């Protein structure tokens, strides 16, 4: 529980944070809610020399109606996503998924941007925003750029953010009344999913993403293609792992995880189609 020594600086704004990261180089890390980074540091699996604390950059905590999408500031706590009336109305899948992150303590500290930037394939919100076709906004020394969620996840805990870039906003298209389902399968309430499925469906249109079925969150495009071509739920669910690369861990063998993904996609599609 004792991390290696590190320096700590607090940023007052996104610009200042980006400048500080630039100043301290590759050994520096952004610290938002701390619920992904600090455990790794306590186990000495991560040993950044400088933490740039962006936890008090208050202007990055918001949920705004932006017409065809909802814009969510990167430092918005999970708890605020979970309880937002705006999200309940336009993005109930996202609000519901946020209610499954960790436990109440975690949801009051952890942030949506921190979770996405950490790019953990076992986390709920990367896959959920991926299923919803979100766009992420990154700010760097040279301004901002938009990154489609489908281009963002590069590998295990690796995103397409540059070292000096900071995730500032998550833009999620409104669901327009689509049916949806979030299936989180785990052994204890507080745990990461063994397998999770975030899915929405509006007739032939759908989005399905898998949690913990590979080194990144997985967009199950074959399932959506099957739905679009009029396949039955049963047949579409059979395509659940076409894009996945499941690994074995203490909770699940590859065979079991594969089986579980198919069962949960079927259940998710059934619920989203109801």
């Amino acid at each position, binding site marked *: 529980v004792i991390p290696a020594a590190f320096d700590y600086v607090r940023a007052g704004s996104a610009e200042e944070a980006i400048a500080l990261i630039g100043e301290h180089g590759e050994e520096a890390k952004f610290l938002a809610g701390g619920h992904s980074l600090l455990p790794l540091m306590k186990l000495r699996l991560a040993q950044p020399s400088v933490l740039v604390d962006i936890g008090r950059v208050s202007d990055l905590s918001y949920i705004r109606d932006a017409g065809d999408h909802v814009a969510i500031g990167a430092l918005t706590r999970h708890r605020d996503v979970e309880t937002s009336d705006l999200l309940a109305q336009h993005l109930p899948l996202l609000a519901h998924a946020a209610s499954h992150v960790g436990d109440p303590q975690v949801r009051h500290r952890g942030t949506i941007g921190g979770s996405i930037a950490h790019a953990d394939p076992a986390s709920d919100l990367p896959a959920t925003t991926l299923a919803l076709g979100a766009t992420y906004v990154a700010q760097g020394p040279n301004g901002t750029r938009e990154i489609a969620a489908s281009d963002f996840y590069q590998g295990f805990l690796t995103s397409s953010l540059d070292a000096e870039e900071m995730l500032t906003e998550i833009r999620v298209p409104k669901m327009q009344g689509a049916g949806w389902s979030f299936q989180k399968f785990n*052994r204890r309430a507080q*745990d990461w999913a063994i397998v999770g499925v975030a899915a929405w469906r509006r007739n032939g249109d759908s989005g399905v993403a898998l949690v913990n079925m590979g080194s990144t969150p997985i967009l199950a495009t074959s399932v959506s293609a099957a739905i679009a071509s009029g396949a039955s739920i049963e047949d579409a669910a059979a395509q659940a792992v076409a894009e996945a690369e499941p690994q074995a861990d203490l909770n699940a063998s590859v065979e079991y995880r594969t*089986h579980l993904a198919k069962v949960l996609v079927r259940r998710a599609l059934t619920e989203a189609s109801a």
Partner: protein
Amino acid sequence: MTMTDTAPGRTVLGTRMLRKEDPALLTGEAKFTADMHVPGALHLAVLRSPYAHATINSVDVSEALKAPGVKAAYTGADLMPLWGGPMPCAWPVTADMKNPAHYPLAVGKAAFAGDGVACVLADSANFAQDALELIKVDYTSHAVVTDLEDALSDRVVIHDELGTNKSYTWDLKIEGEPGQVDAAFAAAAFTTKERFIQQRLIPAAMEPRAVLAMPQPFGGEMTLYSATQIPHILKIFVGILCGIPEHKMRVIAPSVGGGFGSKLNVYAEELLCTALALKHKVPVRWTEERSEAAMSTIHGRAQIQDIELAADADGKLTAIRVRLIGDMGAYLQLVAPGVPLLGAFLYAGVYELPLAYDFSCTSVFTNMTPTDAYRGAGRPEATYAIERSMDALASKMGIDPLELRRRNFIPKQKYPYTAFTGLVYDSGDHDAAASKAAEMVDYAGLRARQAEQNVAGATKRLGVGLSTYFEMCGLAPSRVLASLNYGAGGWEAATVRVLPTNRIQVVTGTAPHGQGHETAWSMIAAEKLGVDPADVDVLHSDTAIAPYGLDTYGSRSLPVGGVAIAIACDGVIDKARKIAAHQMEANEEDLEFSGGTFRVKGSPDKEMPLAGVAWAAFTAHNLPDGMEPNLEHHTHYDPPNFSWPFGTHICVVEVDTETGQVEVLKYVAVDDCGVQVNPMIVDGQVHGGVVQGMAQALYEGAVYDSDGNLKNPTLAEYLVPSAADVPPITLGHTVTPSPTNQLGVKGVGEAGTIGAAPAVINAIVDALSGLGVRDVLMPASPNNVWNAINAAQGGNS
């Protein structure tokens, strides 16, 4: 039974008094070992072997010594001159038991991943931790043994000097006539033969271990604070091993946050802190990290059980045969070899068995963390084996598992009952407990619902699982322990002191670490002496204040320590009666004592409250001739028997056959722990115990890879269930007082743990029996349940 001074008209015992301990615990005012603020203390950090089995060729601490804040660094070899001997194992169960030398830091070889090989003393825990990374150890790693049968093969021998991985074989064969067991199996109408795996469990007490050794500046005295269950036993061993005379050694266990047996040991860090504090003449402290705890604090369970039952045509048991392999881990800890023996007497559960029992246990060394007593210690394992086997037998016979149990219960009218082992069970009414549980859970209704629900193709299957159990507790009559080669007695000490102003001090040799002894012992003294429990203070867990005691484990504290307090109260009352009689000029025999006042029978105006007696005893102005001043009684109580709590647990589950997920719908626990001192505390013990047993059934298990690495050392991976994961538990009680002590109490610390695991697994197997499933590995994780279904279905789910 007798309840001379407490019944009828009890006013304190049996009430749900709030715990005296809780305000300090809930407000953070309670002081744990790591809370002790000691300026100038050095912090110990231990470098642990990353290899499960490796020769230590060299250890170089020179770079660590140069690191900031570091005061000293030592190898195992450096410290050998400090030790009066190897770390203790107090339970040599057989004369030829093999016990490898085990020192606080390994010398020559590391025998498990986590074995300490070097240590650092620094000005802060951070400095010490950083410096560990600078120690260079040259290892030669060897093949690793993590499988018990592989260990028995001696393919790889862990301790070269022993020449084998087998520590001992202990047998208990009881036959009315020679060959009776074999004959019973040959003649049996039904037999079962099962293998059960008791997985390794990590005790995971809320508070990790912590140690603070403080040498006194003059006089050679040493005060050792430790998060331990056994301050008294620790005092003796630390003194011997560190060369401190017992009268100079003081051990204090301040607030201690749980133990479950994991703090019933003499640990390396307690010896390292003490020896190095002595050497450096400064306080030395150490606080365990959570993942460090997973590797260096003992594990529990870890057995392979082969059990066979023989039964007649009615299902009455005629013989039991048990073969165990016990996993001791890399070394023998304090009482580890005895753990299977504590179970050996319980493989017939609460059932009548003729003199036809054949038990043998062989314990082996492996390259894993040492094991030892963990909540229930041998008894949950035994209960699991017999209760799972009873279900297998019922299934074979095609009768209801509750009916089979009823046919085998020791009948109420046979109590006290001399069992096949020669042990005398004090009291019991198994049918009453089972009937109550069955009624509470609506057993008949559930069976009907199950028949409707578990049809072909059903994906949610309903299961009902039973366990009926004994908890052999109240450890223990010292002579019985002697017959089992245990290294100490089983008595407990108590002093009850009435101070001049009628406030009561109770000094106990028990060492609570969450059980609520301050509350319960206050209640016993208050009931006996007729005072307010708030006017009773319980002193404990400091060997300078309570020099005699055998500490807290094995559900012993109430039936031994609590009864000792009642006896000491009687001693106080006897003396007080003499004083009161003398002062009131009455005959002792004519005085009755109730509500804290002595009254002369037939003369309602003549009375003397205990407060008056206490003052009179203090002033000593007018005491009977020859009587010593003051009102105090000290006693040492050696119990005449174990106590035998019992009960029935029934678990109802629904299993999702597509995912293997188990949902516990209902859990009913009917426990009979005799007379309850504080039913609220009893409820809490049962809740916690049931959750811990359920955790073994569904969640927990230490996982090692083939290289001997513990794969789940953190609480993110080692699945201790949280409140959100625990189903409602419905409690019921029957009360069958123990006739062997004046309070009628039996103890309840381990009951829930003993009953729960077999009830849960029986329920899962019951749910899936229609799919051909006969057993599920613990923990019954979704993956394991799915595997069991697949295997039963021939590979197709």
